[in-house]
C-alpha cells in the first residue's frame, strides 16, 4: 500500500445521502478476479447512459452529462464530498478499489457505513467524518467556484479550505499509523503469532467442539 502523504486536491460534491456500494460499483463488475481496473466503472449506472458490462471499451460509451463526476470542472478530482451514510450496503471491497482507481484519495461525509469505512483504510483511501453542517458548507463552497481545492493533512488530522478555514478530524491511531506508513495489516498481525497460538490452545481446551 502507498504511503498517504499530505496533498491539495480538487474536490467534487456528490450531493446525495445513502450512496450504496451497489451504486459505487455495480454487481456485473464484481465478476472480476482481479483487484485493479475498476475505476472506469465507478458509479457506472450514474456515469454512463448505456448499460455497462465487463470488457466494454468505456472510452466509447455515452456519458451522462448531468452526473457531477462527468462535469469538466471536476475532472481530476481527488476529494469526494457526500452526505450521510456513504458506502452503505454490500461489503464489496470493489467499491474502495473503484474509487481509488478512479483517482480519489479522500471521501468526506457526515457518516459512513462500517464495512466500507474499514475497507477504505486497507486501500490507502481516507474516509473523513465531518459534521453535517460543515459538509453542507463545503458542498456550497465547492459549487460556488471552479477549481475548489482542499488540503488534506493526515499527520495533523486537518483539512484546510482555500479561505484558511481549518477542519480538524478524528482518526483511529492504529489506522492512521498504517495509512501514513503504507503498512499491511497482515504483516503487523503476524508479529503476534505467539499470542494467537497461545489463545488458540486455550480456546481449544475451553471449547473443544470447535476443533473436533
Amino acid at each position: 500500500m502507498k504511503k498517504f502523504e499530505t496533498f491539495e486536491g480538487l474536490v467534487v460534491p456528490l450531493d446525495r445521502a445513502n450512496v450504496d456500494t451497489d451504486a459505487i460499483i455495480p454487481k456485473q463488475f464484481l465478476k472480476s478476479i482481479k483487484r485493479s481496473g475498476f475505476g472506469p466503472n465507478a458509479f457506472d449506472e450514474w456515469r454512463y447512459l448505456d448499460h455497462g458490462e465487463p470488457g466494454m471499451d468505456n472510452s466509447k460509451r455515452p456519458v451522462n452529462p448531468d452526473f457531477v463526476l462527468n462535469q469538466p470542472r471536476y475532472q481530476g478530482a481527488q476529494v469526494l464530498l457526500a452526505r450521510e451514510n456513504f458506502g452503505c450496503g454490500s461489503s464489496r471491497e470493489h467499491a474502495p478499489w473503484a474509487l481509488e482507481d478512479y483517482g480519489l484519495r479522500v471521501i468526506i461525509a457526515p457518516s459512513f457505513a462500517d464495512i466500507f469505512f474499514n475497507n477504505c483504510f486497507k486501500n490507502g483511501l481516507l474516509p473523513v467524518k465531518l459534521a453535517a453542517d460543515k459538509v453542507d458548507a463545503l458542498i456550497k463552497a465547492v459549487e460556488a467556484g471552479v477549481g475548489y481545492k482542499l488540503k488534506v493533512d493526515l499527520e495533523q488530522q486537518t483539512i484546510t479550505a482555500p479561505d484558511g478555514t481549518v477542519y480538524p478530524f478524528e482518526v483511529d491511531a492504529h489506522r492512521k499509523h498504517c495509512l501514513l506508513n503504507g503498512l499491511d495489516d497482515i504483516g503487523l498481525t503476524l508479529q503476534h503469532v505467539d499470542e494467537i497460538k497461545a489463545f488458540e490452545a486455550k480456546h481449544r481446551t475451553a471449547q473443544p467442539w470447535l476443533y473436533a
Partner: protein
Amino acid sequence: MSSKTLYDKLWDSHVVRQDADGTALIYIDRQLVHEVTSPQAFEGLKLAHRKPWRTASMLAVPDHNVPTTNRAAGIADPISRLQVETLDANCAEYGIVEFKMGDIRQGVVHVMGPEQGATLPGMTVVCGDSHTSTHGAFAALAHGIGTSEVEHVMATQCLVAKKSKAMLVKVEGKLGRGVTAKDIALAVIGKIGTAGGTGYAIEFAGAAIRDLSMEGRMTLCNMAIEAGARAGMVAADDTTINYVKGRPFAPQGENWDKAVTYWKTLHSDDGAKFDATVQLDASQIKPQVTWGTSPEMVTDINGRVPDPASAPDAVKRGDWERALQYMGLQADTPISEIKVDKVFIGSCTNGRIEDMREAAAIAKGKKVAANIKLAMVVPGSGLVKAQAEQEGLDKVFIDAGFEWRDPGCSMCLAMNDDRLEAGERCASTSNRNFEGRQGQGSRTHLVSPAMAAAAAIAGHFVDVREWQ
C-alpha cells in the same frame, strides 16, 4: 462480576490481544467463503507466500454467480464461470471443504452454513459478505468483512477490530397473523433508519423474538446490516439448541453436552447495560412494503407513498423526490394500488423452508395474475429445495404459475441471468431495494414471502392478513 451483554460475552471470549486505543485482534472460529469476494484474497495469500492458518475453520460455496436453471449446461457467462472455477481451484489447492454447484448441499452461503450446523452458538463467524450478520441468530458474533479482511483472517485466523457499542432492540408482544420476522426487520429499519445501527452491534430480544423460529431469527439478523449494524444477534435458548442438534457439523457425544452447557450462558445478564435501546410492540406491526430506494423508505400495506413535501429535512426531501422518480411512483398512492411485473421469492433473507411454506400457503390453489411477467421461487439451498419437493410445495408453486428454480443468490443482486429489465417493478423477498440492485433501472419493493406470493396472485400489493 458485573453484568455482561451477550455481545460482551462473545467479544471477551475471542480477544487475543488489545491495544491501549481499543484496537483488538479477535480470533475467528468460522470463515465462510464464496466466489465473489475471495479470489483476490487467495491471490494475495499466494503473492505473499502465505497459507491459510486453519483450513478446517473454512467452508466454501459458490452462490452469487450460479444459474438457477439448466445447471447441467454449466455457467454460460465465461466471466462468471471463471470466478466459480477459481473458487474450485483455490479450495482444491488448500484442501478447503467446498459444496460445488452440483452438490445438493450447495446454496446461498448464509442458508448453507446454519443448515450444516457450521454456525454454532458462541462462535465468531466472518464472510466476505455483508449479510453474514445472519449467523448472529445463533448467539454468534458474525461480521461481514471486505476482501482484505478475508485475506487477513485466512492468514492469521484473526480480525483487527474495535468493539462496537451495544444496542438492544426489544420487541415485546405477539405478532399478528400474517406478520413475520421480515416485517419486524423492516419495521425496525423504518424506525431507526439505515444508519441507525451504524457503530453498534444489535441484540434482538423480547417475547416476540423468543417466539420466532431459528429461521425467523436468521431473517431478522440478516437485515441488521440494512439498519447499519455490522452484527445482529439473538440469545441462545432451547429453540437454538434444538435447531443445531444432529446437523452434520454440530458437536456430538460428550462434546455436545459440554457445548450445550456453555451455550446456555449465551444471553445478556440481568442488568446488563446497553448504549442504546429501541422498543417495538409486535402487535402493532403490520405487513411492511418498501416504496423507495433504501430499506428505510418503508411503510405498511395500509399506508401510502409519502409526499416529499412532508420530509423531515431538505436532504431527505431530495432523497425522497429522487426515489419516487426512480421508482415511477406518485406521492400519496396507496401501497395496495401498486402493480408489480415480477415476483422474486428467495435469497439469504427469505430462502429457507419456512419461507417456502409461507409463500406456498398463499399460492395454493390460486393462479398468478395475468399482468405478472415472471414469478420465481428460488430455494436457498439444494437441501431446502429437496425438502420443499418432498412436501409437494414445488407442485403448489408450479400449478399456480410460479417458476421453481435451482438454489443461489439469483435476483437478489442479479449477478447471474436472473434480473429485472429497466423500469420493471418487483415484489421481492430479498434485502436491498437500491437503485439498480436487481438490474439497471430495476424497481424493487421489499416484502415478506407471504406478501410476495399474494402480490403475484393479485397482480398488486395486498394485505395478506385478509387472505389467511
